[in-house]
Structures are given as C-alpha cells and as structure tokens.
C-alpha cells in the first residue's frame, strides 16, 4: 500500500464533501494510549489519551438489513442507533482500539468494531454506539 493511495482516498473524501454539502463531519477521535491508576475515592480510572481532530469523516446510518445482524467482515451485532464512521487512513494514521472513543457534536460514542477497507490501509471503517 502506497502513501499515494492513502492521499488519493483522502482527496476523494474532500471532493465528495465539496459535492455534497454537509457530508463531511468534524469529529474528535480519542485514542487511549495507557491505562491509568484506579482512584478508590472517586471510583474511576483516568486513562492517558491522545486526541485527533478529524475534519473529513463521513457518518452514516447502517442499512436496515444490517441492523440486528453482523456486517460483513465484522464480529459484533449492529444495534438500532449504531452509526458507521468512515475516516481516511491519512487523517488517522494509528491503530485504533476498542477502548477509544469518538466525540461528535459534543456527544461521546464508543467504538464497537473497527476494520479497514479491503486494501487494509486506505479507510478506517468504524461501528460506533452512543455512550
């Protein structure tokens, strides 16, 4: 996989966004990089995170026949309200984990599943669920 293809995909997202108003969303991807220490008094753990602001994400509903089913290549059932989030790899050059979260319009979404496009390096495909 070449860097060139990654940039071409990113450019394609950008062009699509120019063609369809409102298609591209700005999201904040929060990557958990290390586990924190448990605070007994508060009953919480504050993990170490790194945030990435993505300006060219695409958010869409799952198709009706995908709800209550496992999507192709996935391993988790899609529930009503789940969303599909596409992010060009060139905009998020990390290995996501299921501990990460996404902030969209001030709301937090959990990562339910993640896979890459068939070339394995051009587009992140997330199944996300409102926290």
């Amino acid at each position, binding site marked *: 996989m070449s860097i060139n293809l990654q940039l071409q995909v990113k450019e394609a997202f950008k062009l699509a966004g120019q063609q369809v108003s409102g298609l591209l969303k700005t999201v904040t991807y929060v990557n*958990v990089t290390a586990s924190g220490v*448990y605070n*007994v*008094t508060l*009953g*919480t*753990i504050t*993990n170490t995170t790194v945030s990435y602001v993505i300006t060219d994400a695409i958010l869409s509903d799952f198709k009706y026949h995908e709800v209550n089913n496992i999507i192709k290549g996935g391993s988790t059932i899609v529930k009503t309200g789940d969303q599909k989030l596409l992010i060009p790899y060139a905009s998020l050059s990390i290995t996501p*984990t299921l*501990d990460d979260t996404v902030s969209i319009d001030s709301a937090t979404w959990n990562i339910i599943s993640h896979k890459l496009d068939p070339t394995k390096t051009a587009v992140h495909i997330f199944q996300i669920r409102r926290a």
Partner: protein
Amino acid sequence: MSFEIERKAIEGHLNTNWTDATSKILWDNVQVLTPIAGKTLDLRILHTDSTPSEIGASPSFSRYKGLVSCAASVPENTGTAALNTMIDAFCAIFRKKKLSPATGHYITFGVPYLRELGIVEGRRLTVIYVPFYRDSLE
C-alpha cells in the same frame, strides 16, 4: 455508614493490600483496556436483605448484609497454581477482618468460599465470595 463509604472501604482495603503486580483488578463498572489477558480479579460488591436490629431498649440500628464477589481468572490451559495463589491471597485479605471506615462503624467479614465456573470464553474462572455485614445507627 452509606453504601458509598462501604464501597470505598472495601475497594480501598483490597487496593492497599493486593500486592501481585502481575495481575489486574477489574473494578466494578470501570473501563478496562482490551484485550483482557493474564491474571484478573473481577470485583463486585453484592447486597442481600437488610434488617432492623436493636440491642435492649436502644440504640436501634440497621444491619446491612452483603457479599464481596470476586471472579478470579487465568488464561485457559495454564494450570490452576497461579489461580489458587491469587485466591489464597484474596481470601487472606478479607478472611474474618473488621474494617472501621468511620468512627463507631464497622464492616465485618466472614469466611470466604468458592464457586467453580470452569472455562468461560477461554479463561479459567473461580468466584470467591466473602460474606460481610455492617451496622448503621439510625
């Protein structure tokens, strides 16, 4: 004594006395980073019926009973020595101990007992139960 003080006391007692750095404690309803691997303790504080109690004419107090439930687990096919070592360490921390999280208030633990769950999703699980009660003056 409130349920929150009780939680802090029990979790704090475990957190302070658990010394096995090779294992991970999964605290109730707290995010744990995936994948969950190695040796783990999954802690829950459960409650049973509570009753009013009196000693003579006064004072009147409420007795709250519960169970500290802890699912100890190790990866499948790794034997039971490490699991038993964890169980022994956990039991020693709570067996017949008495905590005093607030002046005049106590949490009293009984003798731990085990329930074997066998292999669950690739992990060998044993649940440890430690009965306890606490009294609150009201």
